[in-house]
């Protein structure tokens, strides 16, 4: 009886998904780390020593681990937002813009002395962050779904607008912008609007855990709900989705908006948990790194958790590595990029192999299916 249960567990979609994509991903990452090691060796440092320092920096102390988690927070949230888009066949990559809008939304209510209990003040910030980001996402969502505008261009352009909008807000919007400071920033958030610190003496806020929970929630939504079914159907075969009566346009708009809302929350968590103010350009590149996270995860929400933690560990440990061994600090970006390239490369090569085996098997059938055209 027990044995049967374990077999069933192995056959569950969760495990199957993971084993299928995990093998490729791990192979890619190992190849990336090896190539990175060669580069480190070329710069005159023993790669084993360097990677040792990296591991120690990331996982060697509770400080290190909390640092990894804090860095993972925006990647988890951004990653799941992008991954959702990937599953539905939409490149919703304006995460950076959504983060800025979320931060503005949170700041508008967060800096006000409203004398609210913390739970309600925090919730209010989140609601504003979501609403601001949702409106921001509505624009590319509507344009993509109903006007056929390319979402890659639209979301990236919207990100630029968001960056400059934030610059304006934190430098000159009354009541929000701090006055008489050398660098544009918002007023400090009210203490009732700040997220609690979970570990004394660190900056560990609940963000990473919110991110992990959201990834699990979206794993469930994608695999076990009608909404998720529709999303995947749209991503796999839009013709069939239309034929099956799904309102593809509405679905595309919804997916982009949901991604935007998660992005907005990500920005809000970042300012309410870590920065405590909105600064000009307080995120640089994190939105784009979350695209990489989603790609590394192949759009799988569980994969997003692993990929985000992996990226964060490389970033956090990379700092220690460069301090301790003198490897250039840009090396960790190089390693991340190498891992990405190899993971994608292995995916392409393996996909081709699988496809070849498939076509060979069904060659005659395929040909048969087309005959008579």
């Amino acid at each position: 009886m027990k044995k049967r249960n374990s077999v069933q567990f192995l056959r569950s979609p969760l495990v199957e998904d993971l084993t299928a994509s995990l093998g490729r991903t791990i192979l890619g990452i190992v190849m990336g780390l090896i190539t990175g090691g060669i580069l480190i060796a070329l710069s005159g440092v023993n790669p084993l020593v360097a990677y040792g320092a990296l591991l120690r920096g990331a996982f060697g102390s509770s400080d290190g681990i909390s640092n990894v988690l804090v860095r993972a927070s925006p990647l988890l949230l951004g990653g799941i937002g992008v991954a959702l888009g990937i599953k539905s066949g939409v490149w919703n990559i304006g995460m950076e813009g959504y983060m800025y809008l979320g931060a503005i939304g949170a700041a508008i209510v967060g800096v006000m002395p409203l004398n609210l209990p913390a739970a309600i003040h925090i919730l209010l910030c989140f609601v504003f962050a979501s609403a601001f980001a949702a409106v921001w996402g509505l624009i590319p969502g509507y344009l993509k779904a109903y006007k056929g505008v390319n979402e890659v261009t639209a979301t990236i352009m919207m990100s630029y607008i968001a960056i400059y909008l934030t610059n304006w807000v934190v430098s000159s919007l009354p009541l929000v912008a701090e006055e008489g400071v050398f660098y544009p920033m918002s007023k400090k958030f009210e203490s009732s609007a700040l997220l609690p610190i979970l570990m004394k003496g660190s900056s560990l806020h609940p963000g990473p855990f919110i991110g992990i929970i959201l990834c699990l929630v979206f794993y469930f939504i994608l695999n076990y709900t009608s909404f998720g079914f529709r999303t995947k159907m749209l991503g796999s075969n839009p013709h069939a989705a239309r034929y099956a009566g799904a309102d593809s346009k509405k679905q595309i708009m919804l997916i982009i908006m949901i991604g935007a809302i998660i992005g907005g929350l990500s920005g809000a968590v970042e300012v309410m948990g870590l920065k405590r103010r909105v600064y000009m350009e307080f995120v640089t590149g994190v939105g784009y790194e979350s695209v990489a996270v989603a790609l590394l995860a192949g759009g799988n929400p569980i994969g997003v958790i692993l990929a985000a933690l992996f990226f964060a560990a490389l970033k956090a440990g990379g700092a220690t590595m460069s301090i301790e061994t003198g490897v250039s600090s840009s090396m960790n970006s190089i390693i991340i990029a190498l891992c990405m390239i190899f993971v994608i490369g292995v995916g392409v090569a393996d996909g081709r192999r699988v496809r070849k085996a498939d076509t060979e098997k069904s060659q005659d059938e395929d040909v048969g299916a087309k005959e008579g055209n």
Partner: protein
Amino acid sequence: MEENRFALQMRDITVEFPGVLANDHVTIDCKKGEVLGLLGENGAGKTTLMNVLYGLYQPTSGKILLDGVERQIKSPSDAIQNGIGMVHQHFKLVDTLSVIENVILGMPSKDQRLNIEPAKKRFLQLCEEYELYVDPDELVWRLPVGKQQWVEILKALYRDCNVLVLDEPTAVLTPSESDQLCCAIRHIIEKNRSVVFISHKLREVMEITDRVTVIRDGKYIGTIDTKDATQIKLAEMMVGRPVTIERKDRPVFTDKKPVLVMENVSANDDRGIPALKDLSLTVHAGEIVGVAGVDGNGQRELAECIAGLRKMTAGEISIQGKPVTGVIADPSFLGFIPEDRQKTGLVMDFSIADNLIIKEHHDEPYANKGVLNYKTIKSHAREMIKKYHVKTPSEDVKVQHLSGGNQQKVVIARELDAKPVLDIAAHPTRGLDLGAVANVHDILLAERNRGAAVLFISAELQEVMALSDRIIVLFSGEIMGELEGETADQTIIGQMMLGQPLEVQQ
């Protein structure tokens, strides 16, 4: 030295793919100046065998002799150098180049400059010789499919092939183009070249070939002289049992309620060109209306308009009195077997179970308040797999791993099991083997006898005549006329398919 009589011999070719024996010791011999038919059902291994010849696959064992000499063919360029020409089912032409550019593409040349004039001259000469006329300066995408095939054939001849392989060449041709092809093939063999003609259509094979080799399930069944063969004999060799499409007896309904009513419907195709012109049609409960016609004369648009997938530019459609305004995705009302099951009818990387509910993924009992109930979905799938005899180890298998016939069974199970009032079956037997075709026919007839209105679209005249109570013929988006299925005459329908309205003929 005695001259070798065989242009091509393939001896004991075995091709093994993981888990599948695609060719199992298949042997073919093609004499010089003869047309050898290669006959077999879809999936029997004909195309695999020819891909071995063309260097696309390496055989696990067996050898290839050209002109009596054993040759290793490792790639298509080896094959071309050895005088093998191949016309694939899916043409390998560059659409945006002109005909002559396609013909000389990839030919080795000492000159660095492109010198098209002599090539054109030689090409026109070939056109003349084989009576296949194509304008060398026309861009390929502007040519109808039939002409594109001429280009492929001329391309092979231009390279001076000794053995020309034609893979299901008539699938894309109109009847008159098929005649032209026959004529060209005769010219080719007059020049002592050989042709391997792949088909699963008996009539053509009887007409064109000198000898026929039959393969079934990857195995060599036998080779006979065409003059000694009959269609029935070949069919038996192909499927291992006698098969004919016969009109089956059916109950007659007296009370005929109209179900599908189309009034003066016009619609455009994807390019915005009118594809349906002022078309009116009524289909009653308990009858099969067959839509005959050369494919591409508005059949696709007709089906899509009824299912609400295509906007009409004029007219009205109603099903059981309800006007069609948007996409109908309710299989208990309209069952729609779309013409392209892989592109429209199925999500190829979804499982069988998921594909069976794509239209009902938000409805009870498969979903409850938006949460999918996989227990019900899977047990429903197991039931359908059993009822419709889908060959699969489990309901979790992705449909892309099923054969064409089994994929179609999944579509049929989804579309017809809920007993719709109207069935639209667009080319439901396309690409299926004879056994599967008979199965689909039985299902559609059962639907009619149950009392459903059935609109049956097919380009195969024989099955339209065998199955339909009434037959309409579409030509260029218009109905050329209507005939009783029982008494319809093939030649009259043939004339209508080419654009002669019934009244004119009578």
